[in-house]
């Protein structure tokens, strides 16, 4: 009786194992033919999902996606890379991560792959190659393919700007037409003009700008002003020499201006706001202008409430120079992936001019010259010409391996001054140099 029981148990176990093996076989095959791409959760990511169906149809490789909301994106993905995680085979990582990811071995170096497949970096806009692909900066060492060009731009309520009563009142007050601004000073005038005004029976405000403290928000916003005043991170002839550059009189003036702009012309409670808060304020008709990334503009243009002819776009205004804060990302193969060959296959597919054209048509920002330098490009979208102009003068934050430390120091110093009224602009930038100096000393670069 006992032996019979053992025999039947063994038979059952063997049967179950066989069944599991049979069931597991196709799923293992499917798993081997799939890739996971990690990126931020936003409009262009949805376009990429749509477009990647073509890749699956062509290669038979299923695409899975891991999209993380922007406020947690850097934390989540950098933790993944630092822990050698295998979640992502492909990563569309922020431009500032490239130094750390290259030096710490998180990304696969793509030079030999590019050579083998005939992918030329000359086919991409130089500013995007410099920002999204190279480390050390400007060297021909490529760690990513430029995937999503982006810069900080502005959107405004064209329907409000075109109202005769408002135009005439503005002209009588400021002596010029109510048009998209050419300088930050003009922009502040416009924002002040709209601040607290009743439009269609609703109180509206001047502008939505970046003031977020936790991740990168206020730095990305304030640098929009700093770059326009000619801000430089370091002495062009002596790397990491920041005194007189980071805290130059123009930099101090720019930071003071950003604070004045924040104080005079943003909605109440706008103390910790970034992309999403800006979009909420703009879409709900609260503000006349909004600072935000070009990546959101296709979605805004299609918006049924505030989109279409109701809105217009303009490039970040200059003050002393024309400049914009760089956004955007390159696509990299994660070195911990067990499917590097398939991931490279995806990059090869993505780099082709046809795919790049489709990428732009779906709402992604291609960096490929065949798209951007096409004579008809400027007319493809109402913001296309401004995008090209912005990409001509983009500047990025430090892309050093210690970028997180450098960024958080700036977040603190700028937020302390602009939002929390602590100290002066001069003190904020002086302290920032102290913080950055300490970091570079730790890094052995000073």
């Amino acid at each position, binding site marked *: 009786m006992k032996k019979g029981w053992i025999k039947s148990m063994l038979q059952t176990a063997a049967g179950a194992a066989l069944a599991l093996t049979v069931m597991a076989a196709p799923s293992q095959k499917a798993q081997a033919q799939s890739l996971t791409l990690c990126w931020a959760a936003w409009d262009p990511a949805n376009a990429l999902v749509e477009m990647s169906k073509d890749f699956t149809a062509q290669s038979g490789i299923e695409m899975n996606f891991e999209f993380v909301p922007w406020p947690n994106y850097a934390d989540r993905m950098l933790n993944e890379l630092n822990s050698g995680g295998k979640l992502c085979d492909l990563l569309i990582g922020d431009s500032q991560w490239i130094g750390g990811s290259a030096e*710490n071995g998180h990304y696969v170096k793509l030079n030999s792959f590019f050579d083998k497949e005939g992918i030329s970096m000359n086919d991409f806009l130089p500013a995007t190659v410099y920002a999204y692909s190279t480390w050390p900066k400007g060297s021909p060492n490529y760690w990513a393919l430029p995937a999503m060009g982006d810069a900080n731009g502005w959107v405004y309520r064209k329907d409000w700007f075109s109202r005769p009563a408002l135009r005439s009142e503005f002209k009588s007050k400021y002596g010029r037409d109510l048009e998209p601004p050419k300088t930050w000073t003009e922009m502040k005038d416009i924002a002040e003009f709209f601040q607290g005004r009743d439009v269609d029976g609703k109180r509206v405000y001047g502008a939505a700008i970046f003031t977020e*403290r936790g991740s990168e928000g206020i730095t990305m916003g304030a640098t929009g002003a700093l770059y326009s005043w000619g801000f430089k991170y370091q002495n062009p002839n002596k790397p990491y020499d920041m005194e007189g550059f980071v805290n130059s009189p123009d930099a101090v003036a720019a930071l003071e201006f950003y604070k004045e702009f924040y104080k005079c012309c943003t909605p109440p*409670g706008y*103390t*910790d706001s970034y992309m999403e808060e800006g979009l909420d304020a703009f879409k709900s008709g609260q503000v006349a202008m909004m600072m935000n990334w070009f990546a959101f503009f296709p979605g805004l243009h299609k918006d049924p409430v505030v989109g279409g002819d109701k809105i217009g776009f303009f490039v970040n205004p200059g003050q002393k120079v024309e400049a914009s804060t760089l956004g955007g990302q390159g696509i990299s193969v994660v070195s911990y992936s067990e499917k590097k060959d398939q991931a490279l296959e995806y990059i090869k597919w993505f780099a082709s001019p046809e795919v790049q054209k489709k990428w732009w048509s779906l709402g992604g920002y291609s960096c490929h010259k065949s798209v951007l330098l096409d004579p008809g490009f400027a007319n493809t979208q109402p913001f296309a010409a401004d995008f090209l102009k912005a990409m001509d003068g983009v500047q990025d934050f430090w892309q050093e391996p210690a970028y*997180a430390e450098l960024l958080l120091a700036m977040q*603190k110093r700028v*937020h302390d*001054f602009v939002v929390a009224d*602590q100290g002066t602009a001069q003190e904020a930038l002086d302290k920032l140099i102290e913080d950055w100096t300490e970091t570079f000393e730790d890094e052995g670069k000073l």
Partner: protein
Amino acid sequence: MSRPSILQKIASSAAVATPAPVARQVRGLSDRAIAWLFVTPTILLLLAINIFPLIWTIQLSFTNYKANRAARGEKFIGLRNYERVLGDADIWISLQTTAHFLIWTMLLQVLLGFGLAWLLNKQFKGHSFWTTLILLPMMLSPAVVGNFWRFLYQPQIGLFNYIIAFFTGADPSSFQMLGDVNLAPWSIVIVDTWMWTPYIMLICLAGLRSIPDYIYEAAEVDRASKWRQFWSITVPMVLPFLMLAVLFRAIENFKMFDLVVELTNGGPGSVTELASINLKREAFEKWRTGYSSAFAIILFVTVFGVANIYVKALNAVKQR
């Protein structure tokens, strides 16, 4: 002879089912060995998740290690991290912010918690309903409470601003609880007090209910006034309970993180950046592992030292 109970039946059948050699082995163990058998898994777990990380943290605090750059290795730098932490003005500001938060939340929660407990200790109609209602906030998740109050404090649509505006006649959007440098530290005190006063109240209520009625009856016989009864009977007898509640809450609030992150994320600027938030930024955003380990050890020693002194005071109060 009475019939065996169900428990006795189960026990006897279990004893029969135990194979003889195993039973002999267990019977052969000394009491001390059996005690070790039971305690060892717990000790191993403690070593793995408490003691080992603590020792590792101490070791890291003497190095320049960065967890995001593990390949770079680590270098022994002696007491440099401790010098830097103690000489960092921002760290001292975050400790001041923590002290402000701790002192005011404890003060308000003790006053309100004790007051509510004293009121609820009176038997009145609907007393159970009110007790349950008051206890609700502490049953919520801090993340939920943080989000919920962020909306309440919203200057344009927030209920809190409208209530204040109703009583003061001010424009609701004329003040920002979370965005104003002067109001933000108080806004987090208000939310923590709202959430955790019920906890203090509950423990005080237990203390009040543990006072025997005959003590008050004896005081009545001695013609002691209500005021005298309160100060001579109620307060001394509830004090050990209250001190224990304060100890628990103070330790929790010294480590406060989630609620404040949801409400202000340490802002505006750094005016609500508590020590724990600062520590998290140093450790997991800037990845200064060695530096943040030194900061963590300093915080640990501070809490441990203060808590020990406090427990001694608590014992002294209990022995009076």
